[in-house]
């Protein structure tokens, strides 16, 4: 166990040097590192949000809403397909992933089913299962595959929109990633006030232009006299009424918007918008045909503005003047530019740490680490004497350097529990050396020569070291697999610490001690 080939010695030294080089960037401020020559390693340990401050938001994508909307569209399709052909039906309704209706005359069932076959545009993998029960009841159910695909694309699309909205705010280095089937994780470092971001993400921002139904008053609508093609919607303050009746038909959709900017009109904050070609043409037609009528601008089911059309607007751009503040006009412009979310998002988890608490935590972690390190090093040197104790101390320092290097190379995130993990590994890293040294003491006690004692000590302790560390490693891996956020940070540093401490104890101290043994050939071991 005490002979090293020059190849092994070379590798041990190389690993230590590489470790040192890769851990060095962490000693410099980030700006300074960026000015260093590019061939030097630049990667620094990522600080978790709990250390640098920032917001962690877990958003739930309301995918069921998308499915429901899809099935409501199917309900419209059913009416569109059956009515002109004279097929009589009643009770068309969408619930969950199915739309169903009842035929008035069950003899029309074959004809109805035949017509409905057009719903499945894709013949190879149909989106819908069309089932007829007891002759009159027909159910159109979204297939499992189609539903999954629909949900999936809703999440993907939401991810894209969320990214655009957050980029628009200009936050630095946000992390936006999908988590699980229908969740989106947003991590924004350094954001002191996440409320603005939450407000931005809390709106689906579906904006459509409808005509106001001027024949029906809200009071009439409430008393049950709402025409089939109209709908009663709540209105923003300043619209004169709490509710407004608008035509269901969407004249121009927000999807046709290409730009939106906050601006001022008569010293009032407003939002200007521009349509694409299709939108501009539609908008021009509507405004031309309905001069003096009112146009309702509906955002997420609320009428935000309902101006009177004074003249045809043919240029494809216009202005929304609602009850805006500077801030809310800017927000609406961002939302319109980024596009509508396909489904509503809800915040299901939020963790925000202020930058000052993060700085306090780093400072506290550093203190604890340095003091713990000194305490353990002094104790080891005192306990095992200048040769063995110092060898263990060198190993401990190298161990810390290697952990820092590994964390930088893996670009792992260091969290507050992660710092705790490092401090804990300071205590546990010496364990492998303790196992060996205690074994050497034992062997020396039964009268073995120093070289034989050290040799047997390492040989016998090796198996124990591996067994003992593998079990801790299992715990670390499971923590990583099941944990989230800060806990993962702890698992990473614990795992790195175990791996590097095995290297330093088994290879480095052994090399140091065997070199010393060969040089000084002691008659007695100073252990």
């Amino acid at each position, binding site marked *: 166990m005490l002979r090293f080939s020059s190849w092994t010695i070379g590798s041990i030294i190389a690993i230590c040097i590489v470790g040192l080089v890769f851990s060095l960037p962490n000693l410099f401020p980030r700006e300074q590192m960026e000015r260093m020559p590019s061939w030097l390693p630049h990667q620094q340990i990522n600080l978790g949000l709990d250390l640098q401050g920032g917001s962690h938001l877990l958003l739930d994508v309301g995918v069921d809403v998308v499915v429901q909307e899809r099935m409501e569209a199917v309900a419209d399709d059913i009416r569109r397909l059956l009515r002109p052909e004279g097929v009589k039906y009643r009770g068309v309704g969408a619930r969950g992933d199915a739309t169903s209706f009842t035929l008035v005359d069950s003899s029309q069932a074959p004809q109805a089913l035949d017509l409905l076959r057009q719903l499945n545009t894709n013949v190879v993998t149909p989106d819908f299962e069309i089932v007829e029960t007891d002759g009159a009841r027909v159910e159109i159910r979204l297939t499992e595959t189609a539903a999954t695909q629909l949900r999936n694309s809703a999440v993907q699309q939401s991810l894209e929109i969320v990214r655009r909205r957050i980029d628009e705010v200009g936050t630095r280095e946000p992390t936006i990633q999908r988590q699980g089937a229908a969740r989106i994780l947003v991590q924004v470092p350094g954001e002191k006030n996440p409320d603005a971001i939450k407000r931005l993400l809390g709106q689906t921002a579906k904006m459509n232009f409808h005509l106001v139904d001027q024949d029906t008053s809200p009071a009439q609508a409430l008393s049950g006299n709402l025409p089939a093609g109209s709908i009663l919607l709540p209105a923003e303050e300043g619209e004169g009424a709490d509710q407004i009746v608008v035509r269901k038909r969407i004249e121009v959709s927000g999807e046709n918007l290409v730009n939106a900017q906050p601006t001022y009109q008569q010293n009032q904050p407003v939002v200007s918008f521009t349509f694409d070609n299709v939108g501009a043409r539609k908008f021009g037609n509507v405004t031309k045909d309905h001069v003096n009528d009112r146009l309702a601008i509906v955002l997420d089911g609320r009428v935000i503005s309902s101006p009177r059309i004074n003249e045809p607007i043919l240029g494809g751009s216009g202005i929304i003047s609602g009850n805006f503040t500077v801030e809310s006009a800017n927000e609406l412009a961002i939302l319109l530019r980024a596009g509508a979310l396909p489904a509503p998002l809800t915040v299901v988890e939020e963790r925000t740490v202020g930058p000052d608490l993060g700085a306090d935590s780093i400072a506290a972690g550093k203190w604890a680490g340095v003091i713990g390190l000194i305490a353990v090093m002094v104790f080891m040197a005192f306990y095992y004497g200048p040769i063995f104790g110092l060898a263990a101390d060198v190993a401990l320092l190298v161990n810390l350097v290697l952990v820092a290097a590994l964390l930088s190379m893996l670009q792992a995130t260091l969290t*507050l529990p992660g710092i705790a993990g490092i401090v*804990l590994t300071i205590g546990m890293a010496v*364990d492998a050396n303790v196992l060996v040294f205690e074994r050497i003491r034992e062997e020396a006690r039964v009268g073995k020569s120093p070289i034989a004692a050290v040799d047997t000590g390492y040989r016998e302790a090796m198996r124990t070291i591996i*067994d003992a*560390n593998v079990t801790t490693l*299992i715990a670390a891996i*499971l*923590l990583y697999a099941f944990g989230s956020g800060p*806990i993962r940070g702890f698992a990473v540093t614990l795992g790195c610490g175990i791996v590097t401490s095995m290297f330093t104890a088994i290879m480095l101290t052994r090399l140091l001690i065997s070199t010393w043994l060969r040089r000084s050939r002691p008659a007695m071991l100073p252990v």
Partner: protein
Amino acid sequence: MMSFRLVPDQTKVPFLSFRKTAMALSGFLALISVALLPTKGLNLGIDFQGGTMIEVRMPGDEADIGAMRGTLNGLGLGEVALQTFGSPTDVLIRVERQEGEQEAQLAAVDQVKQALTESFGDDISYRRVEFVGPKVSDELFRAGAEAVLFALIAILAYIWFRFEWQFAVASIVALVHDVVLTLGVFSLLGLEFNLATVAALLTIVGYSLNDTVVVFDRVRENLRKYKKMLLVDLLDRSLNDTLARTLMTSVTTLLALAALFIFGGPVIRDFTFALIWGVLIGTYSSIFIASPILLFLNLRAESVALPSSTEKAA
């Protein structure tokens, strides 16, 4: 003398003769812990219960907790718990899970902020806001429980693979003992049980097992070396052989943890406490619980019958 010893060379402590006392003590403590869980219960943090936690730094030299409590309890948000956190100006506010949708939870945070600003001015700094929705907290709880369970199973499998089954059973009993007693102490002291605590539990499991494996390794080695020795004596000898290492590693780990406990700041103090407790209980259990169980399980008979299976696998 250039070095010293924590314990004298070649101790001969008859650990196994304390086994009945130790078993009785541990059994008693475990019983109390198990009884505490359904009665006093765990002080579940928002990770597992849902709800909102806000850490604020109040202006001035000291936060007036009484006045703050008065302000916040008038909001009709249900139970609002306040405690100072780390320094006299820092206060941890916990708002229980609100009835209704997510919006209700988020609105609660705004209400708290608004009420505090109205009563205490603008100089309040919000150091931390954490909100966990009910669905997420249920998931986190399940994931945490699974992690502990899988860790125990994985470790059981590893020990079984490396040693005889008696060792596996003995180490699992010791680990369950450690976990149960840690849960008991958390319940008794009313410490917050959260995600970090689960991490601490798993680390304790890893540490305690580390200790146990070192002893077991020596037991296995001595079984081969001293074929005629009585099992009681052999276990005692193995424990004494490894005693210096067991204590030494506990001391260095405790040194580092003590530094973390004192200087590491309030956010991880409970977490560090759990680890310190775990090191103590893990050291105790590997000496006084795991090894005696080997005796109860009559280890000798089988390992003599199957000498070849204990040959060095490493």
